C-alpha cells in the first residue's frame, strides 16, 4: 500500500500532489492520501474526488496549521506501519519533511525520482542532471520523493474516496512559525506554466527585469530567473530555475540574458522548445536551444513584446 503526503495550504491542494499520485499509480493501485492541516476540509474533499485515491486520511488540528516538519513527521511515522511506500512531491515542502520521516523509520530515502522501472527500481538525476542513476531500494519500506514535472497530474475529478479523520498528537514544540513572505502575482505558476520567460544577469537591474515580465504577460507566461539574477536582487528566490531552484518543463522556455551554466540547465533542459536570446554567440545556452537569437536583449525584447501584441494569438 502507498501513502501519498498531500501538499496544501489548508485552503487548496497544491497540484504537484496529483503528479505524485499519478507516479504512485505506476507502482500499485492501493493509494491512500494523508492531509495534515488545520481547517483543511476542503483539501480532503478535493482529494476524495481524485479517482486514483482509495482513502483520504485527514488530520485537522491547530497544531498543524503551518505543517512544521518536526510535528508532521511523527504523525506520518505513527501511521506508517501498514504502508510499503510513503511518497511526496520533491518540492521544498516534501524535501523538508520526507528525510525526517525516513530517518525516523530508519529508511534510506530515494530523492527526486523521474522514472519508475520496477516497484523497487527508480531513475533519478545526479550531478545536476548530467548523469542519471538507476537505483534499487533494498529497504522493505520505501520513502520516495517524486520530481513532479516528470509525471503527469492524476485526473482530479470523478472519484469519491472516503475521508477518515485521524487523531492528532502533541506538538514537538521545537520550532515556531513566525511568518511567510509570498510573492503574489496573477501570472501562471512557474512549476506548471505552459510558457516560461526567464531572465538572467544580462538584465542588469530589477528595473530592467520589467522587460521580462512584460514579455511574459504577452505570452501568458510564468516568469523565471537564473540564480545570478536572484542573487543580484532582481527578483525573489521563488523565481529561481535550476539545480538548487525549481525544475520546469514548459512547452516553451525563453532564456534571456542567461549564459546557460549546467546548474541552470538542470532546471529547464527538458522543456519542449527552448529559445535563447544572448549577445554572446559562445554562450552555452545556445547548445540546448531550439532557436537561438544572438542579439542585445535591450534591442530585441521590446520588439518581441511589441510584435506579440500585434499577433495577439496567445494560447491559454
Amino acid at each position, binding site marked *: 500500500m502507498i501513502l501519498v503526503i498531500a501538499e496544501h495550504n489548508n485552503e487548496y491542494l497544491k497540484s504537484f500532489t496529483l503528479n505524485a499520485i499519478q507516479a504512485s499509480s505506476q507502482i500499485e493501485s492501493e493509494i491512500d492520501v494523508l492531509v495534515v492541516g488545520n481547517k483543511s476540509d476542503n483539501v480532503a474533499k478535493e482529494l476524495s474526488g481524485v479517482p486514483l485515491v482509495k482513502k483520504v486520511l485527514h488530520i485537522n488540528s491547530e497544531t498543524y496549521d503551518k505543517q512544521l516538519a518536526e510535528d508532521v513527521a511523527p504523525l506520518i511515522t505513527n501511521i506508517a506501519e501498514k504502508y510499503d511506500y510513503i511518497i511526496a512531491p520533491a518540492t521544498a515542502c516534501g524535501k523538508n519533511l520526507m528525510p525526517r520521516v525516513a*530517518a525516523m523509520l530508519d*529508511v*534510506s530515502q530515494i530523492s527526486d525520482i523521474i522514472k519508475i522501472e520496477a516497484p523497487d527500481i527508480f531513475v533519478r538525476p545526479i550531478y545536476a542532471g*548530467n548523469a542519471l542513476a538507476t537505483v534499487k531500494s533494498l529497504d522493505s519500506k520505501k520513502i520516495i520523493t517524486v520530481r513532479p514535472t516528470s509525471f503527469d497530474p492524476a485526473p482530479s475529478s470523478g472519484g469519491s474516496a472516503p475521508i477518515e479523520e485521524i487523531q492528532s498528537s502533541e506538538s514537538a514544540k521545537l520550532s515556531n*512559525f513566525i511568518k511567510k513572505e509570498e510573492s503574489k502575482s496573477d501570472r501562471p505558476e512557474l512549476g506548471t506554466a505552459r510558457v516560461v520567460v526567464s531572465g538572467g544577469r544580462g538584465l542588469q537591474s530589477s528595473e530592467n527585469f520589467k522587460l521580462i515580465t512584460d514579455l511574459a504577460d504577452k505570452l501568458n507566461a510564468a516568469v523565471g530567473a537564473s540564480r545570478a539574477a536572484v542573487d543580484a536582487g532582481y527578483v525573489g528566490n521563488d523565481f529561481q530555475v535550476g*539545480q538548487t531552484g525549481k525544475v520546469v518543463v514548459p512547452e516553451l522556455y525563453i532564456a534571456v540574458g542567461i549564459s546557460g551554466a549546467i546548474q541552470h540547465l538542470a532546471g529547464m533542459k527538458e522543456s519542449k522548445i527552448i529559445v535563447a536570446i544572448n549577445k554572446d554567440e559562445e554562450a552555452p545556452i545556445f*547548445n540546448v536551444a531550439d532557436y*537561438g537569437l544572438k542579439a542585445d536583449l535591450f534591442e530585441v525584447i521590446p520588439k518581441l513584446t511589441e510584435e506579440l501584441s500585434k499577433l495577439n494569438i496567445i494560447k491559454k
Partner: protein
Amino acid sequence: MKILVAVKRVVDYNVQVRVKPDGTGVETENVKMSMNPPDENAVEEALRIKESGKATEIIAVSIGESKCQETIRTALAMGADRGLHIEVEGIIEPLAVAKILKKIVEKENPGLVLLGKQAIDDDCNQTGQMLSAMLAWSQGAFVSKIEFSGENIQVTREVDEGLEILDLKLPSIVTCDLRLNEPRYASLPNIMKAKKKPLDSLSLKDLNVDITPRIQQIKVEEPPKRQKGIMVSSVEELLQKLKNEAKVI
C-alpha cells in the same frame, strides 16, 4: 557553544562531469575536487557566529576517503578550529552520514550543526533533515539568514512560495543555501596555519555505526542529449518559427 559543520568533498561545480563507459558512476579520477558549495556557506556562517561572540569553537567534519582531509583543511584555513575525519570508502548514503554525524554530535555536544542544503554530486537534499530527526532537534532547512534571539535562532528559509521565517529552539540543525552569505577566501598565511590545526581521524569501528547500503546503484548513464537547434537572425524570424514550425505560440 560549539558549532559542528559538515563538509563534503565533491567534484568541483565547474567540472563537466563524465559518465564512466562501464556505467558504474562518474569519472572522479584526475578531476578537480572541492568542498561542496553550500558547505562553504555553512563554514562561513559558523565563523561569523563565532566572530560575533556567540560560539567558542568550530569543528569541521567530513566523511569519506582519506582525501576528505583536504576538504577539512580548507575549512580550517577559512577559520574553523579543528577537524574530524571519518574514514569510509565508497558511496555513503545520507542516512549513514546522518548516523555518523549523530554519534559525533553525542561526543561533541554542539549547540548548532550547520550543513549544506544539498550535495551537488548526489543531489539528495536529505542529510540535515535526517540528522535533525535522529536527534529530535529543531530543523531549519534551505536557510538564507540566521539571527540569534535569546535562547533561540530565527531562520529565513527559501521555500517554493517565497520565504518562510521560523523560530528554532537550540540546539538545532540548519541546512544552508548559497544565499546565506559570501564565503571568504582562505589567505595564504591562514592556509599555512591550518596545517598545524588539529585534525583527528576516526574509523567507523570507533563509532560503531552500521552503514550497510540500503540502495543499490544499478547503473549510471548519460541523459539523452538535446539536439542543438538553429540560429535565427531576427525577431520576425523567431516569431515565424515559433508560430509555424514549433507551433507553441
